[in-house]
């Protein structure tokens, strides 16, 4: 489904701020893989997702998605195949536009936008149904501006928007990190529900080790711009947080350091 081959990315090459973010990154995802991604600060998790999405070009290597070489495709073209939810709840929605207008934008992901109406009346019923699934009462507030919603509501909406047109790959970058624990749980449950019912392939960066173990069918650990540990199936399910920390020390020779990481 997704293949990253020898991907390198260095930021600010030749300056004092030079930073090798991805180094010889290799990853192969099978269809319907739901992979959780963990790693310390600056390990390159967000960069990996950004490179897949085409936010910045990579220095060398190859990115293949669903059999297509997308290495040199611009971000807006790759978007046809990708659903994305960001860490910052503000990132995924347009605050000054109505909930239904945001959904209509998402509904047209990957399609050519022309001079027909931005939102057709028959779509609205479909959005109402979709919003009901969120169980946040948003189906009765479809003409409210998204800016009026809470962070959790916005993240749930972004998740819905990312999956409104079934993506080949869903990219989630710590999408619950900015939410309070209760809301985070809700958005996470919703994530699992959507991935399961739509049978999506997904990459989810998380700072919560327990979530990383319990959610999805596969877990990868990143360090210094590449994958240092890759586990799936039964072995993954039986992991303990301590095992992960131990793996990290063995593979990297360092203590695990992530200021947002929840170890318990």
């Amino acid at each position, binding site marked *: 489904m997704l293949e990253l081959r020898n991907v390198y990315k260095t930021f600010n090459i030749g300056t004092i701020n030079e930073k090798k973010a991805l180094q010889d990154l290799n990853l192969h995802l099978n269809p319907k893989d739901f992979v959780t991604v963990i790693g310390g600060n600056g390990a390159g998790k967000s960069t990996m997702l950004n490179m897949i999405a085409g936010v910045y070009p990579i220095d060398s290597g190859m990115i293949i998605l669903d059999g297509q070489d997308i290495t040199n495709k611009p971000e807006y073209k790759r*978007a046809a195949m990708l659903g994305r939810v960001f860490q910052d709840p503000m990132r995924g929605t347009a605050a000054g536009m109505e909930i239904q207008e945001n959904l209509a934008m998402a509904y047209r992901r*990957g399609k050519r936008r022309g001079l027909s109406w931005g939102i057709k009346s028959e779509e609205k019923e479909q959005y109402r149904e979709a919003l009901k699934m969120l169980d946040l009462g948003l189906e009765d507030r479809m003409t409210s501006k998204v800016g009026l919603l809470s962070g959790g509501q916005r993240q749930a909406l972004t998740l819905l928007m990312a999956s409104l047109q079934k993506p080949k790959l869903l990219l989630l970058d710590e999408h619950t990190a900015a939410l309070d624990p209760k809301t985070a749980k809700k958005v996470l449950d919703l994530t699992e529900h959507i991935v399961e019912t739509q049978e999506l392939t997904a990459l989810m960066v998380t700072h919560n080790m327990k979530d990383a173990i319990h959610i999805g069918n596969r877990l990868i650990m990143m360090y210094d711009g590449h994958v240092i540990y890759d586990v799936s199936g039964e072995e993954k399910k039986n992991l303990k947080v301590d095992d992960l920390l131990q793996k990290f020390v063995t593979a990297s020779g360092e203590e695990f350091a992530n200021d947002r990481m929840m170890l318990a």
Partner: protein
Amino acid sequence: MEGILLATQGAIAQGILWGVMVLGVYITFRVLDFPDMTVDGSFALGGAVCATMITKGMNPFLAVLVAILTGVLAGYVTGFLHTVFQIPGILAGILTQISLYSINLRIMGRSNLPLLKMDTVFDMVQHAVYNLTGLELASVHVALLIGTIMAILVICLLYWFFGTEIGCAIRATGNNEYMVRALGQNTNVTKVMALMLSNGLIGMSGAMVAMYQGFGDVSMGTGAIVIGLASIVIGEVLFKSFKSFFGKFMSVVFGAIIYRIIVAYVLQLGLTASDLKLLTAIVVAIALAVPVLAKYTFFKKLSRTLHYVFARLFGKVKRQEGEQ
């Protein structure tokens, strides 16, 4: 009394014609959230092109059309500089603006091109109305008529356009361009389109103003951006209750009209035209400072007092919408 009435009518006519320019400024500054400095240049460009074409014998309606197209082109240049060469938005606009100064001089061949004895759109409509109905309209009334029709047409067009898929994408670009790209729309395209649309309207407004005042002038656009912002701010403050997109466009044109009326009265009070720029700048600065000032208790009290006074004056207290 009659003098004031006449001055007011003239101000309203001017306001509507300039209002189309303000709609253009609204599209970039408010909808796209892009500080487009092309405005001063593209407004004068519209005037210069229109005046030149008319003196060369072109049909004035056609001349307006050409003025619109050149404005569109100016917007494209700014957009191109910004999106392709990644020149910061403000600078890209300034570059186009100063180039246009030279270009406008070239187009007209002089700094001021009068339209004496030339038929403009206004003259043609005046004649047409006379031939059809026998009514002899004063030129200020013709300007009011044409300006109103034009403004309504433009507002309807914008309302439609910003409801389409691509129009929605432009609005979303002004909100959150990361999201727009993540949803598969090239934001370079939406930005350039908005700049073209905006400067097309500005060019059109420049053409109409040139015809109304009877000449094209290379400096007729100087300060247009600030006038545009002042008008937008006035419109937004006075017509807060206009929440729909259509209403917002309306309030922008009303703002332009009220700005012109204020100008007319200030001139009557004895200030000169050259004082206006200072005055306009102060209006914009105050308006932009309001959100910051509102944090201080003194201004909170002041605003509450003003509300109270207004309530007394107009005999009713308006409940603030959306406030708990």
